[in-house]
């Protein structure tokens, strides 16, 4: 097995210090394969979260357009359809590698688990992608070949397709987090014993609600930010009002739902089933009755303490068990070899997610109040906040996924298979690093192109162009 010493690379490549510490500064194949998947999935998920959130909001715009016959709302739907189209393509091209990487980088895991999680992955292709791609083609290219009602229906099907896709991915992940409905064959492979139990894994249902709400948060913030931009800029003001209104209303609903009930229920379920993860997320080194919640501070693995802590007493016990006196398991009760292997990263990911989530609710309540008092469109300070806040849901969604996946470590399938047993043993660190660097270069280019394209669409504005009015729709 090829092992490249980090010293050889003169410290140029240590993308993630906590990993490197644990691996004794070696770029082992396991580390490379983990980074490979982590990097490509993180970049990929920047796109589907907007696809899924925006899909729903486009249906809202299109529905209003159809019911009121308003040209403006129709143009608004078309405008977001164009951005959706760009976003969708980037989601597709970065998504195809994901399905392959199970086999290319995680072969031993795939060999054993294919009978279970290959199932939802194949179902995603069969039930969602065909639906989504067929109707998106129709939505973007076919408006003048179909009726307005049919066009609305195409928008609904695209939205549905993206949410079905999200469901199957969550089912896949949920089984790795909380394996259910399986047995083992004599050759060690996992086999499904109940199809419905696999699909209705309680972990998956909770995670699905939480995740889809998160996607709507992203969609709402992006729409509100573009609206705020138009209002501040003074161009396309009529569209600016539509976008901020829809963005703020759906933002208010989704930011509340993401904390309660979806985040709350999901967190409780994690606490019950992955005590090591919750202890590390909260930075709880010692088992406590009436455990407090750490708002800020830096976890110190060496001393087993939080440095510079800002703690509110009893809150953690209450959040998990509904009583301030309950005992919460700390890391001291968990064998060291079962601690999440990148503990500080997990702690920060979780705190960033939770902190941003709190900010989202505050911002959206304020904006909604101003909208209700009919003062939002002129209140420049909050429009500015809405504009510059659009990256935060992306960060929060990413941090949320990092919390889930780093929290699962050191397990690949929780309690059943360790991550160190799952990667492709025939693919050396050198070959893995080669393609990881390749993906990094390629995705840097993609990120740049995406930004340019969306920037162009936004500066063009939603108003129909003369040539567009003739062709009814541009792709």
């Amino acid at each position, binding site marked *: 097995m090829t092992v490249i010493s980090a010293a050889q690379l003169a410290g140029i490549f240590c993308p993630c210090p906590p990993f490197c510490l644990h691996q004794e500064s070696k770029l082992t194949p396991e580390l490379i394969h983990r980074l490979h998947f982590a990097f490509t999935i993180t970049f990929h998920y920047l796109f589907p979260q907007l696809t899924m959130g925006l899909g729903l909001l486009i249906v809202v715009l299109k529905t209003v357009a159809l019911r009121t016959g308003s040209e403006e709302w129709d143009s608004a739907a078309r405008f977001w359809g164009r951005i959706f189209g760009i976003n969708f*393509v980037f989601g*597709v*091209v970065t998504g*195809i590698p994901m*399905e*392959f990487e*199970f*086999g*290319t980088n995680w*072969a031993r895991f*795939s*060999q*054993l*688990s*294919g*009978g279970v999680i*290959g*199932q939802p*992955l*194949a*179902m*995603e*292709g*069969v*039930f969602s*992608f*065909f*639906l989504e*791609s*067929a*109707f998106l*083609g*129709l939505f*973007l*290219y*076919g408006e003048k*070949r*179909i009726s307005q009602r049919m066009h609305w229906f195409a928008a609904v099907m695209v939205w549905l397709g993206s949410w079905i896709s999200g469901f199957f991915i969550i089912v896949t992940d949920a089984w790795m987090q909380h394996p259910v409905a399986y047995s083992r064959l004599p050759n060690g*492979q996992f*086999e*499904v*014993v109940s*199809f419905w139990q696999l699909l209705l894994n309680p972990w998956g249902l909770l995670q699905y609600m939480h995740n889809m709400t998160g996607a709507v948060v992203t969609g709402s913030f992006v729409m509100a930010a573009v609206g705020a931009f138009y209002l501040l800029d003074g161009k396309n003001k009529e569209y600016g009002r539509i976008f901020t209104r829809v963005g703020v209303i759906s933002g208010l609903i989704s930011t509340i739902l993401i904390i309660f009930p979806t985040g709350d229920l999901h967190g409780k379920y994690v606490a019950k089933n992955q005590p090591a993860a919750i202890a590390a997320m909260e930075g709880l080194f010692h088992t406590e009755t009436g455990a407090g919640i750490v708002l800020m501070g830096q976890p110190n693995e060496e001393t087993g303490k939080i440095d510079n802590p800002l703690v509110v007493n009893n809150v953690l016990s209450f959040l998990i068990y509904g009583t301030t006196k309950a005992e919460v398991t700390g890391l001291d009760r968990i064998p060291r070899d079962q601690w999440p292997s990148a503990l500080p990263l997990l702690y920060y990911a979780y705190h960033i997610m939770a902190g941003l989530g709190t900010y989202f609710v505050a911002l959206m309540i304020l904006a909604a109040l101003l909208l209700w008092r009919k003062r939002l469109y002129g209140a420049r300070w909050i429009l500015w906040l809405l504009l510059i806040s659009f990256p935060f849901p992306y960060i929060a969604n990413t941090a949320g996924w990092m919390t889930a996946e780093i929290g699962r470590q050191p397990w690949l399938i929780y309690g059943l298979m360790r991550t160190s047993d799952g990667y492709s*043993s*025939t*693919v050396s660190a050198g*070959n893995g690093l080669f*393609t990881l660097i*390749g*993906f990094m270069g*390629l995705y840097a280019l*993609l990120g740049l192109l995406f930004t340019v*394209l969306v920037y*162009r*669409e936004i500066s063009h504005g939603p108003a129909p*162009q003369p*040539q567009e009015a003739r062709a009814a*729709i*541009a*792709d």
Partner: protein
Amino acid sequence: MMGFIWFWLVAVMIVGYVVLDGFDLGVGILHLFLPRTENERRASLHSIGPVWDGNEVWLLAGGGTLYFAFPLLYASAFSGFYLPLMIVLWLLVLRGVSLELRNHIDVGVWLALLDGVFGLASALLAIFYGAALANVLRGVPLQADGYFFLPLWTNFQPGANPGILDWYTVIGGLVALVALTLHGALWLCIKVSGELEQRACRLINPLLVLVILLTIASLVSTIAVRPASLNNYYRYPFTFVVPVGVLAALAGIWFFNRNRQPVKAFLSSGVYLFFMLAGACWGVYPTLLPATSGADRDITLSRAVSGPHTLSVGLVWWLFGMMLAVAYVVFVYSRFKGKADVDASTH
């Protein structure tokens, strides 16, 4: 029995992918030289605009089906063909993005760059797919645990220690390149009009001659590299219908093209691709991935297949889901029937 069924279902997905994405890859290859004006380029791209993304779904759905029906094969082949697969992924990314970008950018210099990337990525993908199939037919140096890792090339000989590329797999790549170019030309012949249509149609006969020559070369070399490919045919002689089908399909392309029935000519080309792939599958069955390191290391159907419950449950949703999928495909193609919209604006 379940293994037999799933073997052919996976084969159906692969055939679906090759026949459908095949024509838009072909249009991509032709894009390098066939359209001469900006309007013609747009017309040729608009002929695949609404459908290429859906065509690529067959690859994803096929990959997923392979994953759950034959996990060992998926794990072994995907990690063993690591480097070429990653290159395929990069090409798919570049191809999809350059196609999408072209709709949004109107600066001539960039358009030329995007056209080049799109065409080259399409051509390389076709070559890689052909070479991939040839790699499977030739076999790989499997270890006892069912895994292997192939370098991109060794000495270009299909011996015990081959690379991804050797003279045999290069022939496979060329067959795919030319056959998909022909497939794309037949599609353009249906979907575009004017001078571009005439140029596409004129290209068909020369391409057909090339396809016939390469088909013969690939057949002969396959028998030379892996004589066992013929065993199934001798055991069940009625399966010689496959090579007959290949010939009939090639004749069909020629005949319908001469009689100006482009849709039928295009379908014949689909039938040709179907028989070529089915013939290859039948040549290796019931082996999924032959070993060059000794037949006892072959990954066979019974060794790679998933558990019985997985497969029987899968059959229910797979049939249901694919019926839906085919319905969408038929619906969308029927909406976009006839010549592509040239006036659909780009911006």
